[in-house]
């Protein structure tokens, strides 16, 4: 690991109050990243969707029922204490996935992966998918495949890359014009596709970027759990399974309390205690 003085930390925040569950992000991701498809994609446990939209309900009976949709890309964990040992990276035996300390993005190299699937077991978000089949496209359809993302072969794991190739291309332009790239030059395919504008993507280390303004990540470890770093100081913003200390870089935002509660696991009655604490801690934010 090397220290980058001006390292980026790309992340996103999803406004769940705006998300309509329309699926544009999912399809944009598939089209952008050459994700294959099969005849039967209703077995969701072997259906490759780097971006998956979960449907959450508040579990109340008619007519108090409420529903919210939660888009889930790879969370790009930076691991316990924000040290870059994400659950998957630390377990990959062949270094087929690594943590980019310069971007905060968790890579996946299909040609290095030999398909042991340890990383999938280690990921609590089910963000990693295995190519159980050889990818096949109906005749002629491979014509729309993009050269910026290499198609995967059978027997390897794949996952969301925060559209890293878009970063690569943006940087090429940057080099050409001998300048740093702008916030809007590197945006993921799901972000640009979302018709509701529910997704905000950018550099969490850059106070100018919209995502940082919304999330207000706390650089200091959470006093309640030293493993947790980058907790949001916005009381409406939360992360998935934050308590595990995975330190994801995908944040979620909602006005609804039950939604924020659904983001993590709590013992009976624990939520109310923490909620209040969160409230207080959010004041200085």
């Amino acid at each position, binding site marked *: 690991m090397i220290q980058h003085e001006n390292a980026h930390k790309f992340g996103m925040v999803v406004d769940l109050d705006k998300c309509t569950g329309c699926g544009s992000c999912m399809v944009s991701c598939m089209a952008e990243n050459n994700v294959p498809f099969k005849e039967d994609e209703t*077995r969701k*446990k*072997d259906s490759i969707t780097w971006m998956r939209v*979960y449907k*959450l309900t508040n579990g109340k009976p008619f007519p108090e029922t409420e529903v919210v949709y*939660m888009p889930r890309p790879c969370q790009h*964990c930076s691991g*316990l204490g924000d040290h870059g*040992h994400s*659950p998957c*990276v*630390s*377990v*990959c*035996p*062949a*270094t*087929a996935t690594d943590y980019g300390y310069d971007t905060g993005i968790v890579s996946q190299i299909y040609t*290095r*992966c*030999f*398909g*042991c*699937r*340890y990383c*999938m*077991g*280690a*990921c*609590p*978000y*089910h963000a*990693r*998918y*295995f*190519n*159980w*089949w*050889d990818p096949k496209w109906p005749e002629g359809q491979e014509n729309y495949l993009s050269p910026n993302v290499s198609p995967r072969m*059978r*027997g*390897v*794991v794949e996952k969301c890359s925060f559209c890293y190739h878009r970063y690569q291309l943006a940087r090429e332009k940057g080099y050409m014009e001998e300048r740093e790239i702008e916030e809007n030059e590197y945006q993921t395919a799901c972000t640009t596709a979302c018709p509701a504008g529910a997704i905000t993507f950018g550099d969490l280390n850059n106070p100018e970027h919209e995502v940082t303004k919304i999330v207000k990540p706390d650089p200091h470890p959470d006093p309640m759990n030293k493993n947790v770093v980058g907790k949001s100081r916005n009381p409406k913003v939360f992360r*998935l*399974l934050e*308590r*595990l*200390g*995975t330190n994801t870089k995908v944040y979620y935002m909602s006005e609804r309390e039950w939604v924020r*509660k*659904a*983001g*993590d*696991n*709590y*013992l*009976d009655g*624990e939520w109310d205690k923490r909620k209040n604490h969160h409230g207080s801690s959010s004041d200085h934010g």
Partner: protein
Amino acid sequence: MDSALIPEGAKRCAFPKFMIGMAVVGAVLLWGVYAMFLCWFKGLNQTNMNDYYGFALWIWADLAVIAIGGGAFFTGLLKYIFKIDELKNIINFAVIIGFICYSSALLILAIDIGQPLRGWFIFWHANVHSMLTEVAFCLSCYFAVLTIEFIPNILENRQLNKVPFFHHLAHNMHGVMAIFAATGAFLSFFHQGSLGGVAGVMFGRPFAVREGLLIWPWTFFLFTWSAAAFGPCFTLLVTKITEAITGKKLVGDKTIHLLAKIAGWMITTYMVAKIIDTIYWATVTAPSLGFSLSHFYTNNAFYGYWILIAEILVCGVLPGILLIMKSTRENPTTRLVAIILATIGVCLNRWVMVLQIMAVPVMSFDTWALYIPSWQEVATTILPVAYGIMLIAVAYRYLPVFPQELELNKSAKAAE
């Protein structure tokens, strides 16, 4: 017709009878081999694994055979390092069983990975942070050691032994075996442990994650310990089965009782550690992540509390006690019950540490995932069993595996 190869003075069944037996088991073996090739050529879509069950039956089988194969290193350790000479009567067999278990483990791994031809990346591009890397290295090294430990026994085959070179090689290898035993024990400590670590380090999986010492979670030490404790039980079990099939007494009671006693104490001490670990995890680790014990055991009948009770009490504490108490230990029936329960117990533990981890949902809105293996998975998992039976049969028939065999069966001879 093959009498020239059979150890001198030893009685073996007629060759045709032997071959028929082999053919039957061989058929099962071929079935497994067929399934294996299906998986290699068509890919892992032949299995019922999915993105929730990246680890399944195979990894369980792997962990299980390595655990029960632990008898080899532990017995070796006792015989050559702690100089418990009595165990020389069973050491050969322990080594053969270990050899079978470890070769099976490697074979299953070779089927389990999505890109077998890239398997060597785990060595070439090793990631030192990964428990699996540690496993791969120690596993293959220890397999080499087992092979070396097995060789002298092979060379003692009546015909091979006639070649002076082989004879002396075997003789000298016996001499230096202590070194290999030591190496084996060392390697085993690490790969048994790192297999435990595989689960323990998954901090995204509250059912698996454990705190620990330095880089090693408690499961690391628990796995090593359990392998040392339950491995010998399996050795005893297989010995018992072989005796039953051959209708001969092959290992003296003194040896059996001794090994059983050692296993008994190992199991009991292990269970103490395991129970402490479980309590700490259930009351401290999991709750700190927002999970109550009931979350893991009350969703469905298959992964209910029964599995916890079965593993810890019925197949853990009970056999431990049965084996440390002289009366029950020296009573063949209770001893048999004990070693069977013990073997089940360790396999159950490995099952839980692989499949239940995958079954338990972590995200509050996620669902439990249950899985049934495909026939290809089952066949490839039975394959090693068939292979093991055949190897034991051949070894028993042509190698002087059991030093005591002749003396223990003199009476029988005399009677003829």
